[in-house]
């Protein structure tokens, strides 16, 4: 069970690291090498993004990675195969991240069945709020998977409670308004927000959007359970190649 794994891991480390890659960017072989480097560098969990043509929650870095991957011909089938292989090769939990249309077109129940069978732990679907996700939640539950839902700083207490009631595994707290990959100021305001999140659920809290270096991770230590590194590793690969990822991750905590 994902939640259990995370709690075990948290006993050993003050904060966990989840990283994110866009599958097939720049190609699937490189994607697998990056996963291997990240796991070797001590990442605790990974989200594998199945690219979509209209990724409305993503900023420029991840957006471009989506587009390039699609332009290079990546398919949903190929991404699912990648997930199966990664889950088989590496001893950390993997999640798929994608937009709802990918699941919807594939068939939500079938999607859940395939990823369960592949050994993944769940999915993050940023454009699927729980009130639209009845079919999705049912399928995830049926297959013992974790539907990762999202807290936002704009959510009311009631909203946090409602989202929490649907969540399994952990909750993904977006650190701020906006899309992925932009600067986030980790400040007192964030403190109050994370305290609200903590009050809303007993599940571990992951914090993403703008987490990019050791200082950010240090800020989150004690305030959250998982730091999510998204766009920053893609930037790193873009600028310095996949080989640079290991050192970067190792240096984050």
């Amino acid at each position: 069970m994902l939640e259990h794994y995370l709690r075990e891991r948290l006993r050993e480390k003050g904060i966990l690291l989840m990283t994110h890659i866009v599958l097939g960017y720049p190609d699937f072989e490189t994607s697998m090498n990056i996963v291997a480097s990240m796991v070797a560098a001590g990442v605790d969990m990974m989200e594998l993004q199945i690219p979509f043509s209209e990724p409305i929650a993503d900023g420029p870095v991840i957006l471009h990675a989506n587009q390039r991957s699609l332009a290079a011909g990546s398919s949903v089938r190929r991404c699912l195969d990648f997930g199966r292989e990664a889950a088989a090769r590496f001893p950390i939990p993997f999640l798929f991240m994608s937009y709802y249309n990918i699941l919807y077109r594939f068939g939500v129940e079938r999607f859940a069945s395939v990823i369960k069978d592949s050994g993944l732990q769940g999915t993050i679907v940023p454009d699927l709020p729980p009130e639209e996700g009845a079919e999705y939640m049912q399928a995830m539950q049926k297959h013992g998977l974790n539907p990762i839902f999202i807290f936002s700083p704009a959510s009311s207490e009631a909203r946090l409670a409602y989202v929490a009631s649907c969540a399994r595994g952990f909750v993904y707290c977006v650190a701020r308004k906006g899309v992925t990959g932009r600067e986030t100021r980790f400040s007192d305001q964030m403190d109050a927000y994370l305290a609200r999140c903590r009050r809303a659920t007993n599940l571990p809290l992951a914090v993403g959007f703008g987490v990019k270096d050791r200082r950010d991770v240090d800020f989150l230590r004690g305030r959250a359970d998982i730091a999510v590194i998204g766009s920053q590793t893609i930037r790193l690969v873009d600028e310095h190649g996949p080989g640079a990822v290991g050192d970067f991750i190792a240096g984050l905590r």
Partner: protein
Amino acid sequence: YVPEILTSTIEQLDEAFCAARSDPAFWAEYVRIMGEYSCRPTPLTYAENLTRHFGGARIYIKREDLNHTGAHKANNVMGQGLLVRRMGKKRVIAETGAGQHGVATATMAARCGFSCTIYMGALDVMRQRPNVFWMERLGARVVAVNEGSRILKDAINEALRDWVTNMDDTHYVLGTACGPHPFPEMVAWFQSIIGREAREQIQRLTGSLPKRIYACVGGGSNACGIFLPFIDDDVELVGVEAGGRGVATGQHASRLSAPGAAVGVAQGYKTFFLQDGDGQMRETHSVAAGLDYVGVSPILADLHRQGRVRFESATDTEVVQALELTMRAEGLIPALESSHAFVQAFKEAPRMSPDESIIINQSGRGDKDIFTVADAFQDPAWRDFITDTARRYANA
């Protein structure tokens, strides 16, 4: 189907919309403004010459082209502008494809005193420079979107990205009856002023309801606007989509009239999208930039499912022919978008009785399209003019 961060913003909008909808004074104020700032009610023009030409149904044309800024888009933006005032926000953003909605939004923002940013695909910025020019002159910032196919859908994505960042003081003026709830209902409600007027006008002019109503369908706002007030009547409603180079070529934007589309979820809402088996959105094509869109109003998708609205498509070639005939016969210049509705009406009118009347919604005026229309007509003098102008600039 929006990111969690927007939930409360959307709720706030929904509340404001519901309050406005249940407040008769709001609609009255809206009608007053549209009468004093634009020229509503727009006329319903009897097309005597086209009627004679086809020898069938009596053809009436609803003249949304006469609106301020030249299209039905004015209705929606002024309505949303009133809501923005109610919500106390100071900034508006919008997507635009052909540029009409961008110009309309920039106009509304100037009039209402809002700051304004318009997202427009970089390809559209290049193709629709006149509209960009006017948006900027009206005080809007126009952002060229270099993502994706660099067209309308990418502009919508980018506008949503702005909105999730700035929703506290910013309202997203979505341009058509698409997107997350309550946009489809809200835009359709503002646009229903078209059908409300037309319903009263046709009864006054002919003593009865029309047999059929034709409207082009891009996102679907002009169609929703003229159709919905007739929804409970015995009136056949016909939506005409962009057939592009022919639906068989795959280069089109026919979501409901051709088998290529499937239900999906994107850009915050669920509807028929032109997409591949994986759920990736497909490239679309139309001579009319305003119809060149992968999705379609969920309201129309639902009316399609119910069989209440019939959907047809018109090819680029048919559209140019219908435009040419309409210009010569009536002195009207429908937009290329609107000309799609004319195509289907012209196909059906001859087989109808002179006792029957039909309404075509002329959603906008075509003189905004001179660069496209001149290309479609392959006008050599226009090419010379552009070449000479470029030479003049080079020598200046």
